[in-house]
C-alpha cells in the first residue's frame, strides 16, 4: 500500500514538472485521470514491488550518488590521460568483485555504477559476484570497487 502511494506521488510530480500546467482545470483533470489509469494498470499487472518502485534505496542512495559523481570525475581524468597519451600504457584486466547488495535493484545499481565509472565495465552480473573489465592496472582497483559495493549495500540497509 505504501508503495502505491509513493508511485502516485511520483507520477503526479513528474506529470506536473513535464507539463508545467498548474491553473488549467481541464488539463489537470486529464493529468489526474492518466495518473489513476497508470496506477490501476500497475496494480492490475502486479508489478509494484521493490524493482519498479525502489523506495528501499531512498534516502541512502542520494548521498551515494553525490559520492559517485566525484568518483566518475576522478576516473574520467585517468582514462582521458590514457586516451591522450602519446603511448597509452594499457594493461586490460578481467577480474571479479563480490556483489554485496541483497535486492536486485541494489545489485543493478552497483553494476551500473561500475560501468558508469570510466575505465571499468561490468561484463557479467552473477548472484554473488560481478565480472569486470578494467582498462589499466591502476583502474583495476578491486578494493575500491568492493568498497563501492559495500556503500550500495549500506545505502539500501538504511531502509526500515
Amino acid at each position, binding site marked *: 500500500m505504501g508503495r502505491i502511494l509513493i508511485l502516485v506521488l511520483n507520477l503526479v510530480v513528474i506529470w506536473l514538472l513535464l507539463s508545467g500546467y498548474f491553473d488549467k482545470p481541464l488539463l489537470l483533470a486529464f493529468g489526474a485521470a492518466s495518473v489513476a489509469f497508470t496506477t490501476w494498470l500497475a496494480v492490475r499487472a502486479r508489478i509494484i514491488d521493490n524493482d519498479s518502485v525502489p523506495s528501499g534505496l531512498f534516502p541512502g542512495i542520494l548521498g551515494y550518488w553525490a559520492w559517485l559523481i566525484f568518483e566518475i570525475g576522478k576516473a*574520467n581524468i585517468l582514462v582521458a590521460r590514457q*586516451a591522450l597519451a602519446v603511448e597509452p600504457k594499457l594493461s586490460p584486466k578481467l577480474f571479479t568483485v563480490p556483489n554485496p547488495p541483497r535486492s536486485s535493484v541494489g545489485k543493478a545499481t552497483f553494476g551500473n555504477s561500475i560501468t558508469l565509472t570510466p575505465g571499468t565495465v*561490468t561484463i557479467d552480473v552473477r548472484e554473488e559476484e560481478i565480472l569486470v573489465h578494467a582498462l589499466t592496472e591502476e583502474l583495476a582497483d578491486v578494493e575500491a570497487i568492493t568498497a563501492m559495493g559495500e556503500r550500495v549495500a549500506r545505502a539500501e540497509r538504511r531502509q526500515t
Partner: protein
Amino acid sequence: MSLDFIDWALVRDLLSWFLFLLGSAAVVIGALGIVRFPDFFSRLHGAGITDTAGAELIVFAMMLQAPNWIVLAKLIFIAAFFGLTSPVATHAIAHAAWMVGFKPMQGAALRYKGDEGE
C-alpha cells in the same frame, strides 16, 4: 557589503561556456579513445568518457542557460536519464560480446589469452 557590481548574467554565461567547452573536449577525447584503444573491450572505456563527462557536462551547461524553471526541470530529467540508461546500454553491448565468446586482450603486453597455450 553590496554585490551589485557583479553582472550575474555574465557570470552565468562564463560558467556555462566553460562547461560547454569542457564537455565538448570530453566528447572529443572519448572519440579519440575509441579510435586509439586496441580492442573491443578497451574501446568501450573510451565511449564511457563521452557517455558520462561529455553528455553530463553539456547538459549542466544548458541548465545554466535555461530561461525558466520548466526548462531546468526537463534538463534535470534528461541528466538523470542519461545517468540511468547509458551504463545499461554499455553493459548490454559488453555482455553480448562476452556471451558470443569475444575475449578481451589482457595484460600490459596486450595479448589475447590462449595465444600461446596460456
